[in-house]
């Protein structure tokens, strides 16, 4: 995929870096101000989950095409503990620690497409896309 960029996540500063890369790519693709911020916010949440729940991982940003639609794809992947119950993790307000429990459902609301694949003991991959309108 052209324009792919990978941001390793292993400290809190990397969350800011991932957001900035996402912002840059979104602008290049033609997203507008408010949408760029929505994309940056979604990246922030999934990157933060890597730090909070898996300690380290990676954010992969790329442009995607589907027919004549164009958009941005964000993959957040880690080799952390995995999510035992995805529907529960997706509930607004559910947190396995003392978080607000808004990260996953919030990121889903911000994006057009959102899926999670997770295997216990192996890790988690969150894939999200937003299309240009």
């Amino acid at each position, binding site marked *: 995929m052209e324009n792919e960029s990978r941001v390793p996540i292993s400290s*809190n*500063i990397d*969350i*800011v870096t991932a*957001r*900035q890369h996402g*912002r840059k790519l979104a602008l290049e693709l033609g997203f507008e*101000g*408010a949408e*760029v*911020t*929505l994309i*940056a*916010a979604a990246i*922030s*949440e999934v990157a*933060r989950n890597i730090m909070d729940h898996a300690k380290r991982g990676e954010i992969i940003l790329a442009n995607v095409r589907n027919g004549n639609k164009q958009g941005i794809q964000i993959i957040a992947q880690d080799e952390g503990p995995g999510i035992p119950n995805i529907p529960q993790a997706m509930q*607004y307000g559910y947190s396995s620690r003392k*978080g*607000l429990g*808004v*990260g996953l*459902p*919030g*990121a889903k*609301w*911000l994006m057009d497409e959102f899926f999670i694949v997770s295997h216990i003991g192996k890790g988690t991959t969150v894939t999200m896309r937003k299309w240009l309108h």
Partner: protein
Amino acid sequence: MHVPILKQGDYLIASVQSILSDEDLLQLRDDLAAKVGKFRSRAVIIDVTVMDVIDSFATRTLRAIAHMLKLRGAETVIVGIQPEVAFAMVQLGLTLEGVGTALDLEEGLAFLSTHSKRSIKHGK
């Protein structure tokens, strides 16, 4: 980046200067707690105009700062949340419950002066 905190009369004004890391936000919390005690400030204004995103962590920390400063006797007003940032917060379902907000620094100061007058009246 370190957030400078200015003392102005009974108030403290903290202006975020650049995108903050999590550590910077936690440092701000500790600095404000110390300064409110030292200067016996009645209110704190946090200017977040430059913040590019206010995510769940930033929301949680800002709420915690306001709550903690309240216990130390000071009101907190967050000013300068940009329209797109506010829009993203709404979409994320994040709220700054229990925290004062105002459009900008000027409004923040106006908010505090009416607020403190009112609480003095109520106090009588």
